[in-house]
């Protein structure tokens, strides 16, 4: 491990601060639930500080250009014989992206919650849960081993469960929470069993060791690795609401809207995508599993989009839209375009958080209007809205940005990420028609997305107002604490697409480097050249890239060509040459030449 330079040693503070916030707010909730100012300061403050710490750590990380993921071990957690599990955090490009998204979006949503939840009697409890959620989410993405990740994995599920049932006046809320948790437990079954299969075959559970040994411990494409990865996929479908375990997410909309934005759109539900990306080495070893991931994703993207067409509850439209977009991400990571899947995760976090918070702002206004006139109409029903752009101009404008982004209209962020996913599927389709089918499904889902989102916007913001004469006077824009975060997210939804162009987040440059299907040697005469190279790339280059110099991107070499000073650790890998061959772009250097290896794409 390189010396922790720069401000990398701040990494522990990233998850620790929200935990501190949880303890503080939890104490306040028990002792002085009325102290709302203190709760707001603690709740938002820890998130802002955590975001600052994350930025500092990532900046230090990027400047250090480490060849391997940086692992910070804090203490020994579970020593069992030769298996040792530490409380350790790991920073690499993947987790760097994730912590920035999680802390950044969380901080904005916490600010929004100050306004949105201001009059709720359970204010302190709400912030305590929300802080705890962020802590677990950061544990999930920063954990350096499966068990630590599992702690976060279960923890976010618990917080989600508690927050869905936050308003316990109605029984349906509690039932929705229970449903979410039980469905997630089915997914966890897959995760846990997969974890123990991995342990059985590789003898370890640290990401480093598992991914280093996976190519030798498993035979590419055999039953063991396929079973393992399919079980992992089961875990992912539970957490990320994919077919067949998607049913809980629409019901989860019973929770407060900022919770839907944070947990059920931007962060927790993307954990499944994160897990597949994290385990890309394992998935790459099993073409069947990867194709299943992509298939589940494509099917879910299309299927959920069709459901969204006919929903009247504004939040349920967005819920099905989330499921559909998560399907896109699965299609991306299943195709092997991990960077594209992650990229969509990031842009989706921006525009879907914006859509949810915007709908929160709408519901807030509608609720106040109905509350003022003691009406019992449904504040979330699109049929009761209409013409709101005159009353909520900021919300309307910002939500239009998000709508254009999610619909994939060019300069907006969603276009870039969707395009990459669809492009990846299409490119693989040139060799295997099944991927063309996935591509078609993706295109169809994209069209439906544009349709149902436009429908939502038109029903809510345009045309005549259907709220009611008496209520109309009470419709007004939310306070700045709610519109401010919306504006920031609007900016990100608009311009978020550019982050994939420079190399900072392992974007485009890297994507070209790691996209397996692009790396494929066309002249490989064996079986399906595509699959072969695709599998081979990840499984130690035995069959892949055997004549790849011309078709692989610059800097990638088969084993025989590796120069001794190359920075890789294991010798049997297709690897990058030293920095000299890639030094033209120092940004991509780290990705190309770092630890090319098993961690594949992400820790490069």
């Amino acid at each position, binding site marked *: 491990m390189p010396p922790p330079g720069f401000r990398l040693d701040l990494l522990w503070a990233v998850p620790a601060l929200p935990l501190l916030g949880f303890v503080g707010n939890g104490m306040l*909730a*028990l002792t002085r639930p009325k102290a709302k100012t203190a709760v707001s300061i603690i709740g938002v403050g820890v998130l802002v500080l955590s975001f600052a710490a994350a930025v500092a750590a990532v900046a230090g990380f990027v400047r250090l250009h480490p060849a391997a993921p940086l692992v910070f071990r804090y*203490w*020994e*957690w*579970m*020593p*069992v*014989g030769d*298996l040792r599990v530490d409380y350790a955090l790991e920073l690499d490009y993947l987790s760097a992206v994730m912590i920035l998204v999680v802390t950044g979006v969380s901080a904005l949503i916490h600010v929004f919650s100050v306004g949105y939840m201001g009059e709720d009697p359970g204010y302190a409890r709400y912030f305590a849960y929300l802080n705890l959620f962020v802590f677990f989410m950061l544990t999930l993405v920063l954990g350096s081993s499966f*068990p630590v990740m*599992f*702690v976060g994995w*279960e*923890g976010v599920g*618990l917080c989600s*469960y*508690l927050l869905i*049932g*936050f308003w*316990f*006046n109605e*029984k349906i*809320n*509690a039932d929705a*929470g*229970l449903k979410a*948790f*039980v469905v997630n*437990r*089915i997914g*966890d*079954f897959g995760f*846990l*069993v997969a974890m*123990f*299969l991995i*342990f*059985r075959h590789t003898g370890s559970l640290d990401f480093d060791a598992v991914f280093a040994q996976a190519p030798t411990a498993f035979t590419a494409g055999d039953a063991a690795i396929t079973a393992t990865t399919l079980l992992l996929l089961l875990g992912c479908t539970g957490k990320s609401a994919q077919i067949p375990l998607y049913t809980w997410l629409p019901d989860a909309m019973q929770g407060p809207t900022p919770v839907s934005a944070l947990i059920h759109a931007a962060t927790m539900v993307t954990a499944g995508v994160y897990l597949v990306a994290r385990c890309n080495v394992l998935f790459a070893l099993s073409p069947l599993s990867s194709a299943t991931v992509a298939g589940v994703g494509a099917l879910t993207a299309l299927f959920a989009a069709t459901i969204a067409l006919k929903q009247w509850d504004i939040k349920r439209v967005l819920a099905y839209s989330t499921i559909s977009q998560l399907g896109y991400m699965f299609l991306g990571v299943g195709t092997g375009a991990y960077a594209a899947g992650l990229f969509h995760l990031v842009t989706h976090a921006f525009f879907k958080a914006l859509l949810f918070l915007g709908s929160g702002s709408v519901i807030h206004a509608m609720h106040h209007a109905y509350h003022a006139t003691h009406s019992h109409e449904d504040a979330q029903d699109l049929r009761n809205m209409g013409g709101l752009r005159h009353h909520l101009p900021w919300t309307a404008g910002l939500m239009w940005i998000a709508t254009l982004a999610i619909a994939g209209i060019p300069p907006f962020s969603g276009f870039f990420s969707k395009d990459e996913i669809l492009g990846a599927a299409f490119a693989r389709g040139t060799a295997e028609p099944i991927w063309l089918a996935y591509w078609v499904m993706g295109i169809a889902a994209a069209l439906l997305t544009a349709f149902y989102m436009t429908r939502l916007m038109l029903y809510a913001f345009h045309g005549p107002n259907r709220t009611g004469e008496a209520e109309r006077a009470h419709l007004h824009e939310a306070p700045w604490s709610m519109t401010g975060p919306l504006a920031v997210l609007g900016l990100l939804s608009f311009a978020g697409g550019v982050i994939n162009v420079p190399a900072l987040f392992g974007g485009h440059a890297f994507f070209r480097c790691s996209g397996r299907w692009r790396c494929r040697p066309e002249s490989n005469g064996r079986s399906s050249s595509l699959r072969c190279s695709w599998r081979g790339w990840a499984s130690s280059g035995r069959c892949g890239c055997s004549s790849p110099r011309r078709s692989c991107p610059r800097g990638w070499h088969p084993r025989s060509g590796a120069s001794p000073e190359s920075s890789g650790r294991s010798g049997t890998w297709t690897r990058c040459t030293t920095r000299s061959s890639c030094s033209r772009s120092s940004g991509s250097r780290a990705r190309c030449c770092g630890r090319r290896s098993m961690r594949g794409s992400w820790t490069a």
Partner: protein
Amino acid sequence: MSLDLSNYRDLALALLPELVLTLAAVVLLLVVAWRHQTRADLRVAAWVAWWGLVAAAVAVWWLWWNTARAAVIPPPVHPPMIAVDDFRFVADWLVLGTAALTVFVSFDYLERESLLVPEYYVLLLFATLGMMLMAGGEDLMMIFLGLELMSVAVYVLAGINRRSAPAAEAALKYFLLGAFASGFLLYGIALAYGATAATNLTLIGVQVTTLGLQKSTMLLIGLGLLLVGFGFKVAAVPFHMWAPDVYDGSPTPVTGYMATAVKAAAFAALFRVLGEAFGAVPAWREIVWWLAVITMLVGNVVALAQRTLKRMLAYSSVAHAGYVLVAVAAGTPAGAAAFVFYLVAYTFMTLAAFALLAAKGRDGERDVRIDDLAGLAQRRPWLAFALAVCMLSLLGFPGTAGFIGKWYILVAATQSGQVPLAAILVLASVISAGYYLPVIMAMYMKPEPFEQAHGGMRLGPLGSIAVAVSVAGLLFFGVRPNRLLDLARTSGAAVRPAPAATSGGGARPTAPKLAGN
């Protein structure tokens, strides 16, 4: 410290904890013979019992601190009937600690329920003494005596509330089925003796290897009967039928004690018998494998259907017996460590859960339904928090000792090649979410049904201490299990099959070949 168990001084030292506890129990018996009228007498009895338990625990600690071990005794002398090893010490601590916490939980409960029976504490001490003999027994006869001492005391404890018909039913049922189970056990001992001409565990182990009795029918039948007997005591399916009714009918602190200490002691004895006497007989692994699978599945599925909290916890304790059996089935050092660790974690969570239930109920906690806890989090946040931690730990939620315990069991099972068993364990614990979570849901997500619905909930200061200690233990060992795991590992390693006979006759002290048909 090496103890030569053939002389009385060393033998007394080796038995110091048991002697201390016996003394305390006898003194207490004398005290309550004269003073059993008032509430003050009840409190005196509780404190005498508590200090007796503490003194015994200190004696155990003293032996452990001085690494007391029995000296190897040359063949002509009969080998010792009591083990002096870390496994015994840890098991002793566990049962003593459970009993001490039970005293705290009962302190307020007995007064509240107007159960002015100071003999309760005497019986508690004698039951604990029996458990210690079971956990330390190096001889089937000793284990049987300990088991009977424990059982008889617990039969009475189950029916201590003479005004309650369900308690009487529970006591009778427990007594009849317990006697039946003892019969199985005794017959198993007889057959094992018939096959090996020994009742000493080490000797049985030696006889099995030297005489090649692995396939002896008589020995196998004896082993099967032993497993049935122990299966009754740990409430493993299909020998669990008594458990829900008995747990349901007994006073709640007694239920907590039965679900934890009785089970722990029976498991400790089972573990020692299988490890030391039958280590070379592969047949039991298969049987225990199936027992574990059935117990986990049946326990969890039936628990799903329960409406009252007490019966739900009763079936949950059946399910947990299945998890522990997985650790036994692993049969490796890691399995032994997981076994000890899980018993400790299980004891904490179950005891605290029953203690909280005892606080909730007003004479007849049988009727506390899960929905009766609605809104507890608003009214009594700390109690709700404690119960939530217990439920999460029972569920195996990360961050609690229950998770670490299950984790170790899974690791042990996977390492010994029992991946299907591990998968079934995970599946079973997924099912268990279906009945543990509604408790949390009721407490945190439902409004109080009416004003002051939880007004009568009273834990008492000592009960609070017991619950706080348990919950703190669950959380602490969930985050830093290292010390406890070290202890579990060394103690688990103490139980191992006797080394095969090295020199002719060296380890064949008693009978020539008798069995083998």
